């Protein structure tokens, strides 16, 4: 064979691009984002914008320091997506400095110190979330009950600006615990799950998103809508979401059946916390999840299983972010062990045996 390969084909290319892919994910996030902006009002909008802008600035800063051109990296949508997902996993009324620190953790630490787009081992948004949660547990669990835009209880524009960027105090009686947090606290006080459940929004409200939680993760239905869009446009495949939710649901249901007083049920786990956001948008992050389908199933089951374990036994009420990071660390190993079977070869890589023909 000649070493003289001038150019290899193909001489046609699908109209795919990183930008288009990222753009689709952002579009898929829109319904849930819009709903929660309405639900949590002006402060949430300021928090959301602040996080996005800080992430873009952090990216620009890193590119300048690394003496790389700003474009196309800044415009390919990847950092916008990181910022967007980070914002969605912060408390809706998180102050500006939380957003800033989150952006630094996510973009500088998790992405650029690893070598930039495609090189990072850990999901940047989740690094941001977990680093913040560990450093500022109070601020990171300061959830609020819904104060829809336009309702009497909603904070006004100016007041909201002050809440996020200044020292304006929050309106009274707005703080609320997330469902997972409430169940966990009650359990630690000896109240069985069966009882604490009565004080939570019913499952319908949970599915719709009318419950306290991180900015973008409350509405399971709208997140599902976005996830279906991603599936339909083949940005993601069913493997990771199904494995995450399936394993979480099965584990929770099994244990709930054994001891309903100690373990919350499968549906509750599915509709609480970051399950839908995590299954469709975070665990499916291309860079940090396995590239093979078999690997994705294993990885998804790992995320779902670990989420349940952490929620149930660890100190934190929510475990999705930790579970994702733990499985991120395993991704290279999973990819190594779950390669597809090559054409004409056994799973071990030997040529297939030649069967006798009759």
């Amino acid at each position, binding site marked *: 064979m000649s070493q003289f390969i001038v150019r290899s084909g193909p001489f*046609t290319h699908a109209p795919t691009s990183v930008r288009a892919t990222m753009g689709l994910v952002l579009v898929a996030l829109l319904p849930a984002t819009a709903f929660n902006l309405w639900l949590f009002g002006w402060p949430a909008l300021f928090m959301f914008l602040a996080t996005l802008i800080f992430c873009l600035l952090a990216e620009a800063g890193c590119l300048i320091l690394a003496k790389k051109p700003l474009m196309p990296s800044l415009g390919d949508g990847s950092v916008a997506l990181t910022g967007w997902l980070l914002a969605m996993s912060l408390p809706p009324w998180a102050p500006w400095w939380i957003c800033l620190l989150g952006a630094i953790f996510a973009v500088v630490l998790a992405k650029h110190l690893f070598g930039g787009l495609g090189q990072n081992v850990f999901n940047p948004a989740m690094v941001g979330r977990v680093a913040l949660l560990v450093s500022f547990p109070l601020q990171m669990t300061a959830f609020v009950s819904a104060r829809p835009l336009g309702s009497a209880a909603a904070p006004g524009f100016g007041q909201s600006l002050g809440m996020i960027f200044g020292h304006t105090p929050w309106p009274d009686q707005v703080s609320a615990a997330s469902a997972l947090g409430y169940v966990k606290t009650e359990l630690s006080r000896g109240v069985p799950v069966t009882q604490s459940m009565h004080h939570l929004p019913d499952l319908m409200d949970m599915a719709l998103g009318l419950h306290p939680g991180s900015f973008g993760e409350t509405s399971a239905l709208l997140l599902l809508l976005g996830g279906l869009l991603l599936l339909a446009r083949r940005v993601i495949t069913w493997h990771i979401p199904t494995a995450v939710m399936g394993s979480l649901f099965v584990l929770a249901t099994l244990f709930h059946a054994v001891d309903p007083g100690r373990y919350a049920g499968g549906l509750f786990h599915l509709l609480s916390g970051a399950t839908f956001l995590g299954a469709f948008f975070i665990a499916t992050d291309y860079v940090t999840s396995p590239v093979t389908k078999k690997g994705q199933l294993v990885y998804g089951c790992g995320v779902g299983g670990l989420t349940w374990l952490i929620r149930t036994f660890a100190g934190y009420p929510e475990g999705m972010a930790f579970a994702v990071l733990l499985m991120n660390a395993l991704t290279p190993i999973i990819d190594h062990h779950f390669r597809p079977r090559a*054409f004409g070869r056994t799973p071990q890589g030997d040529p297939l045996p030649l069967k006798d023909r009759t």
Partner: protein
Amino acid sequence: MKLFPVRGGVHPDYRKERTAEAAIVALPLPKALYLPLQQHIGAPAEAVVEAGQRVLKGQLLALAGGPVSAPVHAPTSGLVAAIATMTAPHPSGLAQPTIILEPDGREEWAALPPPIPDPFAADPAVIRARVADCGIVGMGGATFPSAVKLALGTEHKLDILLLNGAECEPYLTCDDRLMRERAEAVLDGARIMAHALGAARVVVAIEANKPQALEIMARAAAALADVTVVKVPAQYPMGSERHLVQAITGRETPARKLTADLGVVVHNVATAQAVREAVRFGRPLLSRVVTVSGGAVAHPANVEAPLGALVSDLVDFCGGLTTPPRQVVNGGPMMGQPLPSLAVPVVKGMSGILALTAAETNEQPSEPCIRCGTCVTICPCGLVPVEMAAFIRKEDIDGAARLGVQDCVSCGSCSYICPAHIPLVHFFNYAKGRLAEKAREARRTDRVRQLVEVHNTRLDKLAAARAAQAAAVEAARAEAAKATGATGQGGAS
């Protein structure tokens, strides 16, 4: 007929409509024909004519250069102007010996071998010999000498001749037109090949995006009990031998084996037609149908051109170029080769000439891999392109080999689909080249070691012989000394 699923693949924009309805038209005889001596895989042919010699249409110009080779014939009558080195349609752009023929326009035929009266009663060896003598090679682009492939029946028990009418490459419609316009001839040729192979059945596989060809071929095959026409899904690379065999039989050809080991041999429709011409009329391979298309061509067409016509002749015949093309391709856009220029001749394996605009090639600067895994999902060979490319980028060619880069058929699907526009196939071709070079190097060092060993043994033997001789001399001298000594002693005493 039941079909079996084939893993992976892509659905490129086929863009066949530009020439699908363009009936085959003959190219007027150009002023000169340029016939490279190597238009096939294997040894180059050896010229048997000289400059200044007049030749007739169909006359042998160059003899097969070995068991895997193919002769070259004069596509028309005329004068051998020269035998010179000339750029061939090969990506390397390297020059190779080429016979230059100036047609005299008289189309005077040479004496051809007689038709084989009843091919289906003939000895397969006779048919193979005829196919070999007529210079027929795989016309789908593989250019492997067809006679060699027809000999597979001597060592394998074959069931099926799979006639490949999938034509899964975008743009190309030459096989489509051939099937629509010359269905009987194609089927006749296929059945002759099946007979030569000892295969009882002919299965014609045509992609679903060619409904007319499917219909016409099915009608032509209706009366033939041994022929089945099958509609296969339009899924690139359906036309890849092993994948087509899987779709039809459900069986996967083991690595390093041939489809013949499964009882199936695949031939292209254009080859079938050429075989028929050779067997029924004694006519060697002199021309072929080429799809001339692409956004830069004024009037895309399917042109039947004599071998050796310049690509520029065909392009001019199609109204020339409307804009400077971004890329001119020999073959289809997925697996075709870039053409170094338009001043290269049509060769036996050239199914398409595509002058593509920048909008059509849609090349973009490559970006970092986002590990989306699409290349893994679509690879029809079950490989992991993203990881192989990562190894090759680090110059770890052996790492890429462990991941199976040599199983890659260079179908181009991964590069085609990659959202980061990474030239994956380029990486793999590079790695395969390096590995082939290494294997050659290993063989060479082996050969050198062997030679050295032979040389050393000879030296050893020589030394041993010399030592033996020396010892013998020594012994003789000692013997003599003893004798003289004895006498001496005797004398002294």
